[in-house]
C-alpha cells in the first residue's frame, strides 16, 4: 500500500463529511440511489424486532430508509464525527430516533458485541477500508448465525486503471483501492460467509459519476470555490473524466453482493 492506512481512513472520513462531498455527492454517497438501497435492504429479510448495522453510514439516509421500509431497528456506524452528528439530527427530525441510532466507530473494530445484529448493510465503503479482510471479519463477527450481509461496492480491475485514478483524491473517490467483483466475493467467503448472489450494477456508477461531473461543471461555470475542494476543481474534473472513461471501458464498475452467515 502506497498511502499510510490510518491517514487514508481519516482523510476519507473527513472528506465525506466535508462541504465538498455534500456538494458533489448530495446526501446519497453511493450509486443507485434509494432504489438500489431498497433492494439491498429487502435482501436482508429483516422486520420489526430485528436490528441491523449500517457500516460507514454517512449522514444516515440509508439507515433511515432501512428502518422505514422494514420496521427494523438500525445502528449506524461511521468514522466521521460530523457525519454521525448529521445522521443523529436526521433521525430526530424524522421522529425515528427511537429505532435508529448512530455512533462514531471504526469498521475495522465495530463497537458491537459478537453475534449481536440480525443484518448488515455496507454501501460503497469497503473499497475505502485499508484492511479489507479485517473489516469483513468484523462484519462476520457481529452478525448472528443465519443473518445476512448486503454489500455494495465500487469494483475495478486495478491493473487497467489510468494514472489519474491513483493517489489520495481517487482513493477518497472510492476508486484507488477498489477490487474486482470476484475478489470481493472471495474476501466475503474467506470471512466465513456463504454467497447468495452477486450482481453487476455498472450503469448506476456511470450515472453517479455523470452527476459529479455536472456539479463540478456548475461550480466552474459560476466561478465558485467549494469548501474542502479549494482550487482543485480542475483536478476533480480530471479524475471524474478518467473515471467516466474507465466505466465505459468496463475497468471500473459497481457490484452488489448478498451473503449469509452460517
Amino acid at each position, binding site marked *: 500500500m502506497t498511502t499510510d492506512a490510518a491517514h487514508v481512513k481519516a482523510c476519507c472520513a473527513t472528506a465525506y463529511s466535508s*462541504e465538498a462531498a*455534500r*456538494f458533489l455527492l*448530495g*446526501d*446519497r454517497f453511493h450509486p443507485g*440511489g*434509494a432504489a438500489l438501497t*431498497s433492494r439491498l435492504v429487502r435482501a436482508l429479510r429483516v422486520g420489526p424486532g430485528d436490528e441491523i448495522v449500517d457500516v460507514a453510514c454517512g449522514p444516515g*439516509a440509508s439507515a*433511515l*430508509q432501512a*428502518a*422505514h*421500509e422494514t420496521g427494523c431497528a438500525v445502528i449506524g456506524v461511521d468514522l466521521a464525527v460530523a457525519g454521525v452528528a448529521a445522521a443523529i439530527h*436526521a433521525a430526530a*427530525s*424524522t421522529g*425515528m430516533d427511537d429505532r435508529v441510532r448512530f455512533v462514531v466507530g471504526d469498521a475495522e473494530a465495530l463497537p458491537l458485541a459478537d453475534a449481536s445484529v440480525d443484518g448488515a448493510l455496507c454501501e460503497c465503503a469497503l473499497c475505502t477500508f485499508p484492511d479489507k479482510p479485517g473489516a469483513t471479519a468484523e462484519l462476520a463477527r457481529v452478525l448472528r448465525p443465519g443473518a445476512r450481509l448486503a454489500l455494495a461496492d465500487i469494483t475495478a480491475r486495478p491493473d487497467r486503471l489510468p494514472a489519474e485514478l491513483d493517489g489520495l483524491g481517487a482513493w477518497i473517490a472510492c476508486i484507488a483501492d477498489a477490487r474486482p467483483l470476484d475478489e470481493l466475493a472471495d474476501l466475503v467467503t474467506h470471512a466465513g460467509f456463504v454467497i447468495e448472489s452477486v450482481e453487476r450494477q455498472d450503469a448506476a456508477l456511470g450515472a453517479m459519476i*455523470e*452527476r459529479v461531473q*455536472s*456539479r463540478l*461543471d*456548475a461550480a466552474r*461555470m*459560476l466561478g*465558485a*470555490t*467549494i*469548501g474542502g475542494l479549494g482550487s482543485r476543481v480542475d483536478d476533480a474534473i480530471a479524475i471524474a473524466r478518467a473515471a467516466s472513461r474507465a466505466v465505459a471501458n468496463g475497468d471500473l464498475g459497481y457490484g452488489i453482493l448478498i451473503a449469509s452467515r452460517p
Partner: protein
Amino acid sequence: MAMDTGARARTDRDEVFLEYTKSICPVCKTVVDAEVNVRSGRVIMRKRCADHGQFEALVYSDADLYMAQQRCNKPGTLPLEFQTEVRDGCPLDCGMCPDHKQHACLGIIEVNTACNLDCPICFADSGHQPDGFSLTVAQVAVMLDAFVAAEGEPEVVQFSGGEPSIHPQIITFMEMAKERGIRTVMLNTNGIRLARDSRFVAELARIGTHVYMQFDGFDLQTHLAIRGKDLREDKQRALDNCAEHGVTVTLVGAVERGVNEHELGAIVRHGVAHPAVQSVVFQPVTHTGRHRVFDPLERLTNACVMRLLTEQLPEWFRVSDFTPVPCCFPTCRSMCYALTDGDSFIPFTRLVDIEEYLDYVSNRVIPDLAVREALERMFSSSATPGAEGALLACEDCGIDLPAAFGDITKNVFTTVVQDFQDAYTLNVRQLMKCCVAQITPDGRLIPFCAYNTVGYREQVRAELSGSSVPTVVPNAEQLQSILAPGPHGSMTSGAAGPGTRNATNVGRRLGSP
C-alpha cells in the same frame, strides 16, 4: 350441426386498458363515460356520445413517460373556501366544488374580449369584435377578493384577455392585485403595446409585473399562421423595452403541428441570450376557440414537445431533464430548471435526483423534507422566476450549493411544457386536480380546462356581453361536415343541442329499469 370450433382462434385487443373516467362529447358537450388506453406506445382517450358517435384523441404520445410520471402526484392542498356545491358531479359544478382535489396555484382574470390582433389561433375567441365585454374596476375587485378569500395569500394572478394591455384600467387592476398581497402579478400579452409604448413598460416595472409574452418563433410563416401578422419587430422591441426597464419576461410559444415545431430550440436559445427573459413556456395549441383544422389522433402533446427540444438542442436537453409538476396532475405540466451562462446549459436534474424527492407513491422515507418542500415550490404552476431560491437557500439541500455561489438567479433559466385539455381530451381525473383557475365576475374559480371546453366560457361571455354565444366545437377533421363558423371565428355546430343523456352506469341498480 357440429360447430367447427377448431377454426376460430381468440384474438387479443390491440390496446392496454388504463383508466375509466368521464369526459364530454366534443360536439354537444354532454358528459359521457370515457376510456383511456395505451395503443402502440401512445395514450389515447376513447368515448362515445349517443347522438354524435365515437371519438378518439391522443392524450400523451409516450406511454412509458405517462406511466412513470404518475408517481409525482402530490396530495392536494385544500383552499380556504369552496365557491360551489357538489350537485351534478364533475365537470358540471365548477368551481371550485368541495370535490376538487387542489387549491388554485394560479388565478386568471380575462379583463376583456377586445384585442389589437385577430389571430387565426385564439382559444379565447378574441379580436376586433363589436359584441364583447370589458370588465369594470368593481368587477375586478370582486374577482380579486374571491381569489383572496379562497387562497388567503394567493401566489399568482395573471391578467389576460382579449389583450389586457389595451384595457384602459389595466394598470389599476394590477395595482389592486398587489394591494391585496398577491405575490406575483403577471400580464399575458402579445407585446404590441410593450413594443410601442415604453411609458407603459415603465409602469409595469413600477408595479413589479412579470410579463408572459406570446412568442411562437422567428419564421414569417409561423407569425402568419398563428398570429395572422408579421410581429417579429414588435416582439424584439417589446423584449428590449422590458430589458431596459428591468421587467422580467416569460416567452410563451403556442406550438402547432406543421407550423412551428422546428423553432422550439431557437426560441429557447433566444430566451437564454436575452437579458429580459428568464423562462420559456411551450404549449401545444389548445384546440378550443379559433384554431386550424386538426386531427385529434395526431395532435402535439407534452411528450412531443420534449422530444422536439431534445432533437433541436441535444447538447442541452434530454427528456429526463423535464420533471413532472406534482401540484397539478403530473402529465399536464413538466419543467426543467437549468444553470446557464449562455453557452453551457446544466439542467438541475443532472445535479440532483429530483424525481426521487417528488415520488409521492412509494412508501419511502424522504431523506430531507426541506429539499422536497423547496422542490415543490419550484415545480409548481405558481412558480415564477426566482423560485429556485428556495432550494438554493436551503442549507441541507440536495444540491447544497455553497454560499460562495451567491445570487445565481441570473444564471437560472426555466423551460416549461404545458398541455391544456380540449373537448376531445378532457379527462375529469386531471380536471379534478387542476390548479389553474379562471376567476369569473360572480366569484367562481373555474378550472381553466373546464372553462374552455365544457361551456363555461360561452356562458360567462354571453352573460357579460349580453349577446348570445354559440357552443364552441373543435375544428376537427372528422367534424368538418357538421361545422359552421360562429360569430367570433371559432366553429359551432347546428347539431349542438341538449344532447341525449348518457345513462351508462349512473343512478341505477342491477335489475332496476
